[in-house]
């Protein structure tokens, strides 16, 4: 069972790398949001795989449950930002934004 879960975990990380390409390339910023949401959901699965490999799944289930709830909050917060702001393009504020 350990080799199967290890292979499944490596395949999952490889596919997460492919999703990261969309986060790099995405022409709009919400594409990046979507990619990060997918990566977050799959990381919950990765935590459970790590738990099975350790043989102590009951330790890792709590962390997975906690992160499943928090992933949702980040997606909602980021989309509320765009619902209020109503523009996807970054505005060039006058005087140049000093934040870097």
């Amino acid at each position: 069972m350990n080799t199967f879960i290890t292979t499944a975990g490596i395949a999952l990380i490889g596919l997460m790398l492919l999703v990261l390409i969309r986060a790099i390339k995405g022409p709009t910023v919400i594409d990046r949001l979507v990619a990060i949401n997918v990566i977050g959901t799959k990381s919950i699965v990765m935590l459970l795989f790590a738990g099975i490999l350790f043989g102590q799944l009951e330790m890792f289930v709590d962390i997975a449950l906690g992160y499943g709830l928090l992933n949702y909050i980040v997606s909602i917060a980021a989309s509320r930002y765009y619902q209020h702001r109503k523009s996807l393009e970054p505005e060039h504020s006058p005087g140049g934004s000093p934040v870097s």
Partner: protein
Amino acid sequence: MDLLGYILISTGLVFFLGTTIGLLRFPDFYTRMHAAGKGDTLSTVVILIGCICLNATQEDGLGLLLALKILLIINFILIGSPTATHAMMDAGNKAGAVPWRKDSE
């Protein structure tokens, strides 16, 4: 029970492969959201059910407790992930992303 778990995890990985290909190759933001929202939720749920089947045979009631907790995770992903997809699609719509049309290419 172990064999069922292996089959379910492999099926979930195949669904996730489909999600990734869709996320990379679709032409527009809205179509990519279809691939991400549906495929991601489904593959996660299938993999988690596979994890339940792998661990259900532990002794003295621990397997039942683990199964209940993983069912809770499945519950929150089933409710939270499609809602997040809806919220992001709504945000994209309000912020003015234009749908792709085949004749505009």
